[in-house]
């Protein structure tokens, strides 16, 4: 991909070596009005999705480990069951639920979303929200599993010790459970954040004209644009950006542990 991004264009076949390397595609991206801001937007969307799905998955995992008891395997199976359906099918289901008509009209009554106007089109800008909702739904089980594993590793005797020493349950959670489950939380967060930055199917299916992410632009260049070098340059910039952010997060987490 790095080598391909230096090709001036695609003339002469896909695998020809008869070309002079150029950095013009990087220049196009850096000088383009929208590309880098869109990368920033994609990172922000991925961050929100990862944070939301982690927040929502944590209680699920907590319930499975500490409250579900004998029925934990059953609930775990229920959590996994959506995976038996195609990823695309689940997104298309959300398309029906969230888009302007059809079930949306019904849902707007049920969910008291009448402020959007039942049966009326969503404001185009709101379609980014539909993308975030759909992606969060898709990722929750993914995040729940590493958190579940993390919580399960916690030695219950530590919680007992905290209780014996007079710690109320909320304090045990904040001082014992939460810090010990942090590696699972971070793993789950990154598992969502990294692939979501490059996501392109969900914006196409549930999003609107204003909800493209950087993945959609890369896909345009590899698809109808027939400009793989420019697409490669863009993908490489995205890859480096995500790597840098991930390294930063890893660093910050270590720092926090060190302080503790």
């Amino acid at each position: 991909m790095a080598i391909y991004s230096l090709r001036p264009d695609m003339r002469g076949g896909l695998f020809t070596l008869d070309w002079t390397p150029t950095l013009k595609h990087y220049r196009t991206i850096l000088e383009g009005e929208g590309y880098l801001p869109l990368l920033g937007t994609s990172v922000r969307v991925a961050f929100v999705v990862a944070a939301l799905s982690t927040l929502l998955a944590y209680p699920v995992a907590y319930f499975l480990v500490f409250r579900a008891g004998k029925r934990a395997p059953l609930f775990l199976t229920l959590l996994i069951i959506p995976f038996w359906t195609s990823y695309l099918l689940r997104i298309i289901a959300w398309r029906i639920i969230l888009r302007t008509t059809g079930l949306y009209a019904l849902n707007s009554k049920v969910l008291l979303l009448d402020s959007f106007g039942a049966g009326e089109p969503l404001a185009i800008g709101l379609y980014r929200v539909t993308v975030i909702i759909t992606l969060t739904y898709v990722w929750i089980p993914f995040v729940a599993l590493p958190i579940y594993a993390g919580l399960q590793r916690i030695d219950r005797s530590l919680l007992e010790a905290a209780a014996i020493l007079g710690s109320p349950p909320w304090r045990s959670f904040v001082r014992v459970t939460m810090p010990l489950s942090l590696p699972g939380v971070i793993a789950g967060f990154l598992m969502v954040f990294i692939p979501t930055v490059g996501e392109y199917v969900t914006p196409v299916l549930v999003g609107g004209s204003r909800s493209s992410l950087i993945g959609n632009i890369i896909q345009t260049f590899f698809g109808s644009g027939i400009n793989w070098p420019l697409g490669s340059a863009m993908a490489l910039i995205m890859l480096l950006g995500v790597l840098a952010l991930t390294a930063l997060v890893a660093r910050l987490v270590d720092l926090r542990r060190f302080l503790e």
Partner: protein
Amino acid sequence: MPKIRRSSLWLTLTSALAIGLLVACAQPTAEPAAPVEPAGPAEAAPTAEPVQPAEPAEPSTLTVLEWAYYEVPEMWVEFGQEHPEVEVVFNFGASDADIFAKTLAGSGEDILHFYTPYLQFYVDEGLIQPIDTSKMENWDKVPAGFADSCTVDGVVYCVPWDWGFTSILYRTDMIPEGIDSWNALFDEKYAGHVSMWDDGPVGAVPIASVVRGYDPSNLTPDQLEEIKQMWIAQRDVNTFYWVDEPTLEEGFKSGEVWLAYAWNGAYYRLLAEGLPVEYAEPVEGRESWIGQYSISSGTENYDLALAFLDGKLGEQTATRLLVDYAYGHVVPDYYSVVEDANLIKALSLDDPTILNRTNFTVAISRDEHDIYSQMWAEVKAAP
């Protein structure tokens, strides 16, 4: 403790199952029409008889890089009848860009099927060779306009076959006043109910050009910048860009989409389902597209490929294309077979002057294609 162990095992199993399923299911593709396995009639033909050792020639094979649904034997009736010994193997492309990229990569089929304006790209890259029309029985039936679409510098490089219109499809119950201009795609009156095809070079640029009255084959940088700004602003009107016709048709049926850039196949299907739709005749003229077949420059089956293309111009194949798929065939002599009123309407077969009022896709260079694609990406990326 055994409980914990059991649930750990359960976790491991379910996680593995989930990951396995995910890998299997999550191969995201926005493209429609999953390619099916090659299904030529030769597969169904009885081949159980053992071949005699003395038999001189084995049945030959012809390969076609095709769009899904055109592989069925009804789409090449004459060739199937005349060459039952030939096994026709179909490989599939999901879009023109995909077919071009596969050919560039050397996928090596004998015959390629692409649409205007891609012909020039294949000629420039030397991927196809001239068509010897003197060896084709049916070539003379092709009207000059369609034949010209296959001619580059006086040389015929392809055989035109299917064609159709591009115009604005709209719901008459939502827009009783009707649509008479391409400008409706940009009209704020329809905000949230417009859908544009997700394509820059073949879709967005020609449409904005005719709306502004610019020559789409000769745009200045200023004009292109203006076109870009038009489409950036259009995003507030456009509900979604469609990439495949089923999504667009679903939008029409649900009532989300009231008007859209559409091909006449969608019009015919929605009309047949009883939806109140109409296909506009914009004052700027309808756009149109032509499907073309070429013979690849590396083929070793030139004569056989030529016979295949000649058969494509035969009456039985043309009839099936018209009646089964509701697309136009380039030979007008066959239109009299169409009796379905909706189909006659969808193809405007009852209007002999319609083609005079139609804009055929203008040829563009690779450089222009790159610039227009980049413009379209900038439209989608704009804040």
